[in-house]
């Protein structure tokens, strides 16, 4: 049966294909954005409010800056913040989740209390407070976004570790003479790793959205820096005047990036999960 199927009908290969495509697109934006020189989106009053054309695919804004390159630059800045936030937050989550599950008792209670505390506050308020306290700007945003994305993943890691620690097959492995180290390497890490990596990838879109959100509200990146939040909040001033391209393209770009990260995360989840891995 299986051999008669063509390559593209295999769901596994399809999933990998989508993941690779999404990765290419994201990495493309990331590196193009990093490579863009400031002159590419310099101020040029002759080109004020130009509608999208071949020369300016996303049009220009009120200062004649090319929106395409501003968006690219802004998105790659967002991605850098996203990567930092995801790495820091997921590391915090991993350490706290494992400590909580392994030590139990007081540590477990304390970490759960901290998780509840952070999840109880509206996320955006917490972000604003931390960013404001840290003096706004790139530093403030990065710290705020990095320090507030750990609670959900902490819970997830904790429950995964708890579950596998008490599972029959881990206990059986101990009875078969396996050392705690062997059990950790062969049973526990492979069990927690997919959850962790997928959690890390799915943190990205959150971090990027939150970065854009606090910048949009004026508590994040400074106005002269090209950032999606800045671009969108400027666009709000012109949208009533019919300058639709100022909001549409940056908005679409942000949306695609966020959705693509989600696609990668979800597809990896399907590939990794033994419930669906062989389908």
């Amino acid at each position, binding site marked *: 049966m299986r051999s008669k199927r063509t390559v593209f009908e295999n769901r596994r290969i399809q999933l990998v294909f989508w993941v690779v495509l999404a990765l290419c697109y994201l990495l493309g934006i990331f590196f193009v954005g990093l490579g863009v020189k400031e002159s590419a989106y310099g101020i040029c009053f002759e080109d004020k409010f130009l509608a999208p054309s071949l020369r300016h695919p996303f049009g220009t804004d009120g200062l004649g800056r090319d929106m395409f390159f501003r968006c690219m630059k802004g998105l790659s800045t967002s991605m850098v913040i996203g990567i930092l936030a995801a790495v820091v937050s997921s590391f915090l989550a991993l350490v706290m989740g494992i400590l909580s599950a392994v030590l139990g008792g007081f540590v477990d209670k304390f970490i759960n209390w901290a998780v509840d505390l952070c999840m109880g506050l509206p996320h955006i308020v917490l972000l604003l407070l931390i960013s404001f306290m840290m003096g706004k700007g790139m530093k403030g945003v990065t710290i705020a976004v990095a320090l507030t994305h750990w609670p959900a993943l902490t819970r997830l890691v904790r429950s995964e570790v708890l579950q596998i620690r008490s*599972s*029959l*097959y881990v*206990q*059986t492995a101990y*009875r*078969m003479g396996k050392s705690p180290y062997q059990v950790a390497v062969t049973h526990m890490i492979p*069990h927690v790793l997919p959850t962790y990596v997928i959690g890390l990838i799915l943190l990205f879109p959150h971090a990027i959205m939150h970065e854009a959100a606090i910048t949009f509200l004026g508590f994040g990146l400074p106005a002269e820096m090209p950032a999606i939040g800045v671009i969108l909040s400027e666009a709000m001033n012109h949208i009533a005047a019919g300058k639709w391209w100022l909001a549409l393209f940056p908005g679409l770009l942000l949306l695609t990036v966020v959705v693509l990260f989600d696609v990668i995360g979800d597809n990896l989840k399907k590939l990794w999960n*033994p419930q669906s891995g*062989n389908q």
Partner: protein
Amino acid sequence: MQLTVEGISFRYGKRLPWILKDVDFTIKSGQRIGLLGTSGYGKSTLGKILAGYEKPIEGKVLLDGRALDDKGYCPVQMIHQHPELAVNPRWKMRQILYEAYTPEEKLLQQMGLELSWLNRWPRELSGGELQRFCIARALAPETKFLVCDEITTMLDVITQAQIWQFLLEVAEKRQLGMVIITHNPELGKRVCTDVVRIDELGT
């Protein structure tokens, strides 16, 4: 060889009632003791204590007069009621089967296990097939005693018969001691050399 339980008591929490109280129990190599009794009287708990899954709160478990070692391969192995919980769902069957030792191909054939199944994940096998893998996995050469906790309860009658026929053959050949936990007195009579009721153990 002789596996002895001396005056063990066990409960799952400090405020919970005793499940086992002052239980004495002995089994010799080659003996097959059926452990019968009502649900909730601690049959499985006693099995877990024998195989080292739980530590008794009082009393000791001795193998030929010496306490069981926590480290290394435990000569008392347990086969569980739900094989799907006793295998890592992320491992393929080959890794699961070879976790403790490398069984001979002959053994797999005797048990009706096909080599192609080794490349499958546990969820792609039926309960009976999984249970046979779990039994093969527990039969390392170092195994001297087997605790079988309702191992065929969820299987159809033909599979039950196949599994027991095979297990009795191996037990006879290798002089294994077996503790067979079951609700089924008929099964107890058929496969065991002695039958003990759990509520008659201890006080």
